[in-house]
């Protein structure tokens, strides 16, 4: 502890001499006291240095600091918990979203296949009938064949093919030379083979109904044989045409 400054600062020689005197061991009671104090100081110094080096900073922290640290940790914990919740929500959304789009794609595929059969752009297979129309006298005209097609449509035929031509909504049948018709620009000659997919029994009975297609053909000198099959193939396809003028209206 500094005491009041002396009027004259000591010279260097004086100071060094005094230091030498002080370093000389003396045996007085106060000297022993001073020594004891220095032992305590050294002990405390070493202990404190060791404690500071060893501890993690928490054991010596004050109560208020600890409370603040605890608050910080709690806040951080809350924030991270919120982040976990958000990420879990996103994950769930993505999972269900994937499921939904997979279902949507599946539905779209099924729908495209159904529409393709209706539009005649894809081959079709299934139970149905094969009608063979013979025309030995050249009296079966396009109108008679159209009647047969209409009758099959009415009876629920889903895909129809005449010869090698797929019959769709726009199909046109024209008269040509006797014994032949032009279907969608392609010339077909008798006998004509009409393949239709649908319930075989319904289709056959629709054709054979009294006053129906088969009887009318016989009346004009032709003949029609209806064969019910468990599986017939409509292999002819019609290229899909992109509409030039119309576009889909926005669905409701």
């Amino acid at each position, binding site marked *: *502890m500094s005491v009041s400054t002396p009027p004259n*600062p*000591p010279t260097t020689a004086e100071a060094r001499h005094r230091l030498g005197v002080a370093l000389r*061991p003396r045996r007085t009671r106060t000297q022993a006291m001073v020594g004891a*104090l220095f032992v305590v*100081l050294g002990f405390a110094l070493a*202990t*404190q240095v060791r404690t500071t080096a060893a501890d993690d900073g928490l054991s010596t922290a*004050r*109560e208020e600091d600890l409370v603040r640290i605890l608050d910080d940790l709690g806040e951080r914990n809350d924030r991270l918990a919120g982040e976990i919740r958000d990420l879990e929500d996103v994950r769930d959304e993505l999972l269900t979203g994937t499921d939904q789009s997979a279902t949507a794609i599946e539905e779209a595929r099924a729908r495209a296949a159904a529409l393709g059969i209706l539009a005649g752009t894809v081959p079709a297979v299934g139970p149905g009938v094969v009608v063979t129309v013979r025309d030995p006298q050249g009296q079966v005209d396009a109108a008679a064949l159209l009647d047969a097609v209409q009758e099959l449509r009415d009876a629920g035929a889903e895909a129809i093919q005449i010869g090698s031509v797929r019959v769709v909504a726009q199909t046109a049948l024209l008269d040509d030379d006797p014994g032949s018709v032009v279907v969608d620009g392609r010339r077909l000659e008798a006998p004509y083979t009409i393949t239709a997919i649908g319930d075989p029994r319904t289709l056959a009975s629709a054709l054979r109904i009294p006053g129906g297609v088969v009887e009318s053909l016989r009346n004009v000198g032709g003949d029609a044989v209806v064969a019910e099959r468990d599986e017939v193939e409509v292999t002819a396809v019609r290229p899909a045409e992109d509409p030039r003028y119309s576009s889909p209206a926005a669905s409701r």
Partner: protein
Amino acid sequence: MIAVLGLVLGILLGVVLEPDVPVWLQPYLPIAVVAALDAVFGALRATLEGIFDDRVFVISFLANVLVAALIVFLGDQLGVGAQLSTGVVVVLAVRIFSNAAAIRRSLFGA
């Protein structure tokens, strides 16, 4: 001489014994050590100026340590312990610096 011996002995004891600081003492020990260091530097300066007194040193040493600990204790009770600890350390450090400057001037004349 006895001071240097005592200091070395104390440090050796602390290193060898590796005592655990009791929890109630933990906030006060570093402050007390700094206060004691201040007393030591003051004593060294007084020695060089020829006005050192054993009795004054012992009393100032103990008083320094007690006052420093008391201030920190009071600060803890008032809820400003951290700030007061910093203040005490700053004041003691300033005193140590000025004492060290006086010692330097005495010993080396510069």
